[in-house]
């Protein structure tokens, strides 16, 4: 490649409850979910998005910035991103952000990207496993006024100010060429995300957001004040930046519940219709009788 300009990327990620591992044990007797039984994880396809950005940095140089909006504990996914090789991480947290739907979320991310950027490429996972909406990526692209490449699986090349990528759809695939800057949403089949490196886990073990300084200082008494710890973390690229609505210049009426046009009218517990049902013993005789009945009712031809 002739043009080896470094590529600066931002990856937008989300900490989600691990809904993939919902089992009988997570469900309570009255049919609700015991959320505490679900661990909070790095949204799986966001890891594919991060991996794609890291691979581009390896080929082209540049930086990878990882941004998340969430409660203070979402700092955990940012620490994980640092262990996997991110250069810089930013936590967007503010009580005002609570209750955001995808529109309000994409607005907050847009404000943060504009403050943290400029970037050549933005990456999101295709969708988050807790809502499965796949909306925030395209909404963020729209708010930034940049094109989007959804369902991206492979980056064919980046040259000059253009990216060529392959999209995978249910109905086939597409190769598209797009001007930078652009936003990609990345599918799970794109790559195998690298694990957190052991070396970086050790080097970056102190990575912390200001809200976590007390805990760090309890474990590392050599830091005599928050200010001293902060100086150290900043100097070593270990400070997890925390930005509020005010920090990113977000207008209050566009964030959180206030900025969310969708409202939950009601939540119904699913009352399973009691079906007229038969318990069939798991024996050859029991099964044969069931098959006979199905044949008799013309269910099985």
């Amino acid at each position, binding site marked *: 490649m002739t043009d080896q300009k470094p590529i600066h990327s931002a990856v937008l990620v989300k900490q989600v409850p691990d809904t993939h591992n919902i089992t009988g044990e997570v469900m309570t007797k009255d049919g609700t979910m015991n959320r505490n039984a679900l661990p909070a994880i790095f949204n799986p396809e966001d890891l594919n998005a991060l991996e794609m950005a890291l691979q581009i940095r390896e080929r082209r140089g540049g930086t990878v910035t990882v941004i998340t909006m969430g409660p203070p504990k979402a700092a955990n996914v940012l620490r994980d991103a640092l262990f996997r090789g991110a250069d810089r991480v930013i936590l967007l947290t503010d009580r005002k952000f609570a209750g955001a739907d995808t529109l309000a979320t994409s607005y907050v991310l847009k404000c943060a990207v504009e403050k943290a950027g400029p970037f050549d490429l933005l990456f999101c996972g295709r969708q988050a496993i807790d809502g499965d909406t796949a909306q925030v990526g*395209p909404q963020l692209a729209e708010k930034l006024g940049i094109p989007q490449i959804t369902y991206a699986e492979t980056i064919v090349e980046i040259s000059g100010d253009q990216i060529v990528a392959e999209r995978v759809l249910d109905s086939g695939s597409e190769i598209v060429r797009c001007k930078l800057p652009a936003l990609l949403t990345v599918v799970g089949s794109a790559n195998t995300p690298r694990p957190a490196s052991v070396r970086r886990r050790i080097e970056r073990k102190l990575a912390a957001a200001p809200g976590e300084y007390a805990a760090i200082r309890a474990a590392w008494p050599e830091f005599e004040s928050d200010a001293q710890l902060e100086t150290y973390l900043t100097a070593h690229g270990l400070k997890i930046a925390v930005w509020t609505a005010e920090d990113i210049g977000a207008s209050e009426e566009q964030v959180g519940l206030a900025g969310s046009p969708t409202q939950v009218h009601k939540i119904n*517990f699913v009352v399973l219709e009691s079906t007229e*049902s038969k318990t069939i013993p798991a024996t050859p005789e029991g099964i044969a009788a069931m098959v006979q009945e199905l044949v008799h009712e013309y269910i099985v031809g």
Partner: protein
Amino acid sequence: MTGQNSIWVFIEQTDGKIADVSLELTGKARELADQLGYDVVGLVFGHDVEPLAQQVIERGADRVLLADHPELAVYRTLPYARVAIAEARARKPEIFLIGGSPNGRDLAPRVASALRCGLTADCTDLQIGEYTIRKENKTYPNLLYQIRPAFGGNLIATIVNPKTRPQMATVREGVMRMPAAQPGRTGTIEKVVPAFEPGDFALEVLSRQVRHSTVQLKEAPVVVSGGAGIGSAEDFALLRDLANLLGGEVGASRAAVDAGMIARPHQVGQTGTTVRPRLYIAAGISGAIQHRAGMDQSSKIIAINTDPNAPMFQIAHYKIVGDVAEVLPMIIKALRERSMSDGSTDGE
């Protein structure tokens, strides 16, 4: 006006063929519009697609907005969004429905963001109702209830957008029933001239490969589905044997797909395919609401699970508590023996 007091449906087409989901949504829109006294408007975008307009009218649309332009020949986010956003701003539809296909899920959020309106993905039902905001002591009538399974558990959420328009929702293929065509049904066709901007062509499609799925879940009379309780991809072979024997198709829960045991086109459920077969066999599927939403209208359901408390048992007609790897061969054997005995007694 083709906007106020109207329900819009984005008509997705590929190479001049309308996606089933768009016609299914046209049928649902007709039903909702009749309740409200609204019009149904189909948005047909493409190049040389004028003949499609009549098909949309025959499935229940009163009007078609036709944007026929070479730049719209192949779906691309920005040119399509440009037209949809401009028309929605000018005509102000009440409701805007888009199929939950990859392209629909690409377009809908882009449009909703520009219009700053609410959008609910993958609804499993749409109804009309009212909503009261107590703080304002105000009731909003005739809202679109966007109904979908919520966050992980056994919950169904009804979402409304009381204050923004249009009220947008996406719905997957197969969730709504395909309306019958009414040949000769009449409606009006209005041509729209797109006002593109140079930035709309930032992306070009260099090549397209259309893969015709060999998985025919939606129409299959029998679906044999496996979930996390199936040990491995090899064990899915048992499901395939059984499906072949019954003239059916193999389905799967999301857990099985995510575990890489079977390809995604086989996924049944809210984010997969909705099926209504004569017989549904759920093997090793616990029965999360997202899965049940895609199969609970099956005529007969057989559930096989080692866990006697699996939610799937609560909607099953036949409950078999046992190991899939043992039970499936028993069913296969019983079916084979039945076939053989049929042959000997009837001489067929």
